[in-house]
C-alpha cells in the first residue's frame, strides 16, 4: 500500500457541511472520480493522461476503472516526462481536445514549468486569443508518513505569479466535483490543487452534473469576531479551530477560498468588514504564499477595516523534513489557528 494511503487511512473521518443538502454522501475521492467519469461521458473531447492513471490503484482511486469504461486512448498511462506531457496536453488542447493531465505529486509539477509557464499559460495573450488552451492539470500534495522534502510540497503560492493560469483548490467533495467540471469546461489552463488528506473527507454531493464558478469563495461557518480564510486542506484545521474557539466564546467566520486565481476578494472584504480581524491559513511555506497575496490584498483594500494586524498561519520557510518529530513541528494545525485567533481577539 502506498505510504500516503497508510497515512490517509489513519485519519478520522471528517464530514464537511456544504451548501448542498441532499442525502447522498460521497468522499472527496469519489466525487472527483464521478466528475471525471461524467465529463468523459458527456464530452468526447475530454481525455485523461498521467503516470499510473490506468493502473489498479487509479491515482488514489480517482481514475479507477475509467480506462475499462472508456476507450484506452482516452485514459492512458504516460512516460515520466512531466514537461513534455504538459506541452503535449497544451498542443492537444490547441487542436480542440480537453485534456486532464495528472501529477500524483505537486512536486512533479516543478519539472513542467517551461511548458506550463512559458507556453500554456501565455499562449492566449501572446496570440491575442486566437488559440485557446483548455486543459486541466491535477496535482496532489501529500503529507505525513515521511513524505519528505520532494513528495509533500504545496507550491500554489509560487504559481499565483503566473499570468494566464487559473488555480482552484477545492476542499469539500461538493466543490471537488463542481470545480473539476468547471475546470474542464474552462477555456484556459486550470491548475487543480488537491491535498491528499482531503481525499477521505466526506460531504453531500448531487448525482447530476453541476459547475461552480471559478473565482467564487464560500462562507463555511458564520462568525463575528475573526475571519479565518482557509486554503485547501487548511479548511479542515480551520473548522476544527473554529469549533474550539466557539467553546471559548470566540465566534470565528471561516471563508473557504476554493479558487486561488482569480480569488474572491469581495467575500474577504465583506467578512473583514464584520470581524475586523483576518487570519489566513495556507498549506504552503510562508514567504510568497497564497496567504501572502491575500494579506497584501487586505493591506491594500481593507486597512481601514482591520482592528489588528493580519496573521498568516503557514508552514515555515524550510523544506519538509522527513523525521516524524520534525514533521510534526513543521505542519500548522487547528491548535496554531486557535492560538493565533485567541491572541487576535483577546489581545496578547
Amino acid at each position, binding site marked *: 500500500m502506498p505510504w500516503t494511503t497508510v497515512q490517509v487511512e489513519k485519519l478520522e473521518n471528517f464530514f464537511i457541511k456544504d451548501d448542498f443538502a441532499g442525502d447522498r454522501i460521497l468522499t472527496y475521492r469519489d466525487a472527483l472520480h464521478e466528475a471525471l467519469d461524467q465529463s468523459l461521458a458527456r464530452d468526447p473531447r475530454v481525455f485523461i493522461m498521467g503516470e499510473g492513471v490506468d493502473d489498479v490503484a487509479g491515482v488514489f482511486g480517482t481514475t479507477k476503472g475509467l480506462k475499462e469504461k472508456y476507450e484506452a486512448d482516452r485514459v492512458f498511462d504516460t512516460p515520466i516526462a512531466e*514537461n513534455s506531457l504538459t*506541452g503535449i*496536453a497544451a*498542443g492537444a488542447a*490547441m487542436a480542440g481536445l480537453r485534456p486532464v493531465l495528472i501529477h500524483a505529486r505537486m512536486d512533479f509539477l516543478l519539472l513542467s514549468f517551461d511548458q506550463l509557464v512559458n507556453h500554456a499559460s501565455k499562449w492566449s*495573450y*501572446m496570440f491575442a486569443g*486566437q488559440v485557446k488552451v483548455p486543459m486541466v492539470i491535477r496535482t496532489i500534495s501529500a503529507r505525513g508518513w515521511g513524505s519528505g522534502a520532494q513528495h509533500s510540497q504545496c507550491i500554489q503560492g509560487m504559481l499565483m505569479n503566473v499570468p494566464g493560469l487559473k488555480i482552484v483548490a477545492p476542499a469539500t467533495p461538493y466543490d471537488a466535483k463542481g470545480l473539476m467540471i468547471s475546470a474542464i469546461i474552462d477555456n484556459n489552463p486550470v491548475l487543480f490543487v488537491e491535498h491528499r488528506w482531503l481525499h477521505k473527507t466526506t460531504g453531500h454531493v448531487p448525482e447530476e452534473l453541476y459547475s461552480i464558478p471559478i473565482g467564487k469563495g464560500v462562507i463555511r461557518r458564520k462568525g463575528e469576531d475573526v475571519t479565518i480564510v482557509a486554503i485547501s486542506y487548511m479548511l479542515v484545521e480551520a473548522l476544527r479551530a473554529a469549533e474550539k474557539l466557539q467553546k471559548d466564546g470566540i465566534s470565528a467566520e471561516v471563508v473557504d477560498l476554493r479558487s486561488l486565481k482569480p480569488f474572491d476578494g469581495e467575500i474577504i472584504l465583506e467578512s473583514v468588514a464584520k470581524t475586523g480581524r483576518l487570519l489566513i491559513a495556507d498549506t504552503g511555506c510562508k514567504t510568497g504564499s497564497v496567504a501572502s497575496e491575500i494579506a497584501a490584498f487586505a493591506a491594500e483594500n481593507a486597512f481601514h477595516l482591520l482592528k489588528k494586524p493580519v496573521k498568516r498561519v503557514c508552514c515555515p520557510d524550510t523544506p519538509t523534513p522527513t523525521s516524524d518529530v520534525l514533521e510534526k513541528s513543521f505542519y500548522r494545525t487547528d491548535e496554531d489557528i486557535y492560538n493565533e485567533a485567541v491572541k487576535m481577539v483577546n489581545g496578547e
Partner: protein
Amino acid sequence: MEKDKLIEMYRIMKLIRMIEQRINDEYKYDEIKTPIHLSIGQEAVAAGVCIHLRKDDYIFSTHRNHAQYIAKGGDIRKMIAELYLRKTGCAHGRGGSMHLIDTDVGILGSTAIVGGNIPIGTGTALASKLLKNGRVTVVFFGDGAADEGTFHESLNFAAIKKLPVVYVCENNFYAINSHQKARQAGEGIYKWAERYGMPAYQVDGNDVLEVSDYAQKAIELCRNDEGPAFIECLTYRWKGHIGTVDDVGEGYRPREEYDLWVSRCPIKRFSEYLKNEGLLTDELERKMDEEINKLTEDAFSFAQSSPKPSPDELLEYVYAD
C-alpha cells in the same frame, strides 16, 4: 514532381529570401522593434517540406520562423505588420517576429523557447490521432533543440503512440555561437530519432529536391497513420543568430566554412536545375521577381501605415473567453 509544384517551390524559396532581405534592409531604421532571426540560406527546408502539406495540417516553428510561416501560406501582410508590432499584425502586435500565427493555414503559434514547440506539435498530432481527422503536424526546430529534454521526451511519446508528426531538424550547426560538436555527443541528430523507433534520415538541407523527396514520404507515412518520422536537414544560416549582424571571421564562424556554404546557395542550385530542365526561363524568373517585389512592397506599406495597439488593450486576452 509535376512542373507546377517545382516552380511553386522555387517561388516560395525566392519569396522567403526576398522578404527576409527586405526585413534585413529595413531593420536599421529601428521601426521593427522586435528581435529577428533570419533564415537566409535555409530556405529549401521550409519550402521542400511545406509544399506537401494540406492547408489544415499543422506546423510549429521557433524563434526563426519566418520561412516556415511563408512556406505554409501564412498571410504576408499580417506577418510584416506583426514585425512592425501593429494592431493589424497576425498576433495583434503582441507576439513580434518570434511569435507568428495564422490559424487559417494551421499555424497555431511559434515559440521562442528552444525545444518548446516539440511537445506542443506532438500534442496536436495526438489530437489528430484521437479525432481521426487525418491532419499531419510538422515540427521545425534547430540543432539546439536536440540538446533539450523536450526533444527526447516528445519523440519517445510520439513513437509509443504512433502519432502523425514529422520532426524536421534544421541543423545549421550553431546555437548562437556554440558549435554542435561542442554541445552534443555522437554524430547525427537523426540517429536519436532512429533509436526511438521511427524512420529517420539525414539529408542535404540545401537541396530542395532531396528535402522535398524525403518530406513527401514522411508526410505520406503520417497520413496513413504510420507516423512519426524524422528528417535532419543539414543547412547553414548566412546571417548571425539574431538581427542583421554577420558573425563570420575572427572568434566566430570560420570564413572558409561560410564561403563554402554560400557557394551551396539553395536557390542558386535549384534555379540552375530548373533552367537545365527547361522549366525556368528568364522571362518567368523576371515575372516572378516582379510579382514578389509587388507583394513585398504592398506588405511593407500596409505594415508601416497600420495603427499600433492602444495602451488600453494591455489587459486583454490574459484569459481566453
